[in-house]
């Protein structure tokens, strides 16, 4: 019958009989550790350098540059003129609405009376709606014509 306590006794007895020397010492472990650390540092440096170079190459290849398909001729001699452009205003002017077509002759027709569409204004009597301010005035005859006698 093997019980845990028996096993503990056996382990203890075996430990007491364990007198073999250790085959390595702490300096071996530290040296190996430093070697591993150096290797890791070198791998990290090489990896980051490779990643940076790859990123630069990809950027050069993929990003659109200022390259034009036709060669650009060299610039001519400088003329010596300088132009000055006003600096853009910090507060730009409000946008101007497109102006509606403006009638060159301002209408003098009082409100409520439709404006004449064409022809001399004096030939066309104003529409007598019956409620305008000119109601009751006789029509004005053109000059040179006999005035019609109402009677």
């Amino acid at each position, binding site marked *: 019958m093997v019980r845990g306590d028996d096993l503990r006794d056996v382990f203890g007895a075996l430990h007491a009989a364990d007198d073999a020397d*250790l085959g390595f010492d702490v300096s071996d472990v530290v040296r190996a550790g430093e070697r591993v650390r150096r290797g890791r540092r070198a791998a990290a440096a090489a990896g980051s350098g490779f990643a940076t170079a790859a990123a630069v190459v990809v950027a050069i290849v993929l990003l659109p540059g200022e390259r034009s398909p036709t060669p650009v001729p060299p610039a001519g001699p400088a003329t010596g003129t300088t132009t000055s452009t006003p600096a853009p205003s910090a507060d730009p002017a409000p946008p101007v609405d497109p102006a509606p077509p403006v009638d060159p002759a301002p209408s003098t027709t009082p409100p409520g009376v439709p404006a004449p569409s064409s022809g001399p204004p004096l030939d066309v009597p104003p529409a007598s709606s019956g409620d305008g301010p000119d109601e009751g005035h006789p029509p004005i005859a053109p000059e040179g014509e006999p005035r019609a006698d109402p009677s």
Partner: protein
Amino acid sequence: MTDLNWNVEFAEHFARSARSMRFTAYLLCGNYPEAEDVVQSAFLKLYLAGPGAARREGLDAYLRQIVVRTFITERRRVRWRRERLVGDPPELPEPDPSTEVRIVLWQALGSVPARQRAVLVLRYWHDLSLEDTAAALGCSVGTVKSQGNRGLAALRRRLGPGFDELRMEVRRGAGR
């Protein structure tokens, strides 16, 4: 902690625990060359982990955990490679009778699967609780219980009723 301080602390811990860890590995592996490989690899991992990782659970517990896990990993690798490391050539003469008894014990221990053997060593040599053993092995408490029972049963099958005589023989041999 600087590298210099860590080197000093590591050296002190090595001097304090290297032999006992080597014996733990010896119980696990069953031969000194493999045990020394496991312990050296464990100390190297501890050195590289630095003080931060070791502080979390204590240097001893952390190192014990590394030893056991390194042993189990190596056993998986050995099984994969289908190679078997042996400490000494089997044809060497063994003049000491107590050594013969120990060989019988080591063979019995060696017949127990690696994980069950690790449970037996942690539970009955390091006197770890079920919870601490489970933490060291990275498994559940129920797994520790079942693996420990199976390991003891395997030893019982292997040694049978002659275990008490072997035990007494080993104790006499250790007292010489």
